[in-house]
């Protein structure tokens, strides 16, 4: 039987970029993405030490990451209740600088993606960025393959609408 450390090291190398990107696209901050990503792998390693028969390491890590992101937003929702005195007054019309940033295609996609509902974000990231096949995504979402295809189609349509609204 292979050394668990060696086995998990391989899992880490294979998944670190995907999990980081998955988290980053949800929190839109390098620092927070790093924190949550390292916590994902730390929790993953703790579980892996006790049970190495993890059928699907990808699904296992994404599940941890999703839970951590949810916890982060839950916590953020609680702690972000600050006095309106200190809340910056935001201009509903984006500034020139903001407009320039938004003009970048990449930024537009990112912004639109972050604005989608969580399951739509996940299905787009998993299928188009991380190349996960539909059957695997179906298992992770607990849906049939057919329903997952329909869901992915809807997610893509929703992203397109968001992008059209941004322009």
């Amino acid at each position, binding site marked *: 039987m292979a050394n668990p450390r060696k086995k998990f090291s391989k899992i880490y190398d294979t998944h670190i970029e995907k999990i*980081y990107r998955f988290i980053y696209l949800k929190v839109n901050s390098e620092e927070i993405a790093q924190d949550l990503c390292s916590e994902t792998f730390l929790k993953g390693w703790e579980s892996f030490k006790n049970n190495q028969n993890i059928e699907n390491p990808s699904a296992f890590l994404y599940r941890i990451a999703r839970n951590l992101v949810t916890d982060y937003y839950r916590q953020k929702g609680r702690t972000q209740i600050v006095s309106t005195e200190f809340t910056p007054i935001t201009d509903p019309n984006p500034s020139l600088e903001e407009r320039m940033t938004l003009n970048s295609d990449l930024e537009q996609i990112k912004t639109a993606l972050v604005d989608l509902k969580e399951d739509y974000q996940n299905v787009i990231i998993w299928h188009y960025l991380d190349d996960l096949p539909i059957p695997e995504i179906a298992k992770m979402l607990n849906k049939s393959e057919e329903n997952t295809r329909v869901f992915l189609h809807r997610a893509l349509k929703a992203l*397109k609408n968001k992008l059209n609204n941004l322009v």
Partner: protein
Amino acid sequence: MVELTEKNLIGKIKELRQIKPRKDWVCLTKTQILGEEPTFFLFPYFKPASVGLIAIFILFGLFGFAKNSLPGDPLYTIRKIVHESRAVFVSPEEKPVFQLKLANDRLKDLTKAPAKNLAPTINEFQASISEAAKDLTKVDATTSNPIVTQKIVDETKKLKENEEKMRSLGVVIEGEEIENFNKAVVEYLIKDLEGMSLTEEKEIVLKEMKKLFEEGKYSEALELYLINQ
């Protein structure tokens, strides 16, 4: 942004693959989670490139150990390979000297060999002496280099001394290999003497040697030569 087709949109999504964590952070986090990579104690900077170097060290180590191995030991094969590879570079004229040296080495080994190594060591000695006899018959004594002849005589002398030592330790090695060697070396020495201008005393020795040779008393003929050397 121009009106997006589904294909374009998917292409744009894939561009998000540019989002990657910093390499130093990836390495640091891995170390923090899993700890330092375990390294080989003697080689903390163990890398595939070091494998060649380590293999050389191991090889030299093996040669070192094999140097003291005896016939019957697993490492003796390495010692034998070294000997055989050396034999490739020896000229046909010097081959009998080389084989005689090996035979002498085996006799020396016999003095320190434990019981389990005795039989294989004797076998190796007999093989070397047999080879020496064969090589001697291939060398023309009349045209042979006097230095080589002297070396043959010296090694033969050592061989006889070692045999004596073994006899005093209770190990008597007999067999046709030794007899054949005695015959080959005496024949060689007779031919060598015949090609030389000899003193009266040496003429008598040669005559006596020839007589003993014809009678098949090779060992005595050799002894006569060595005594009168």
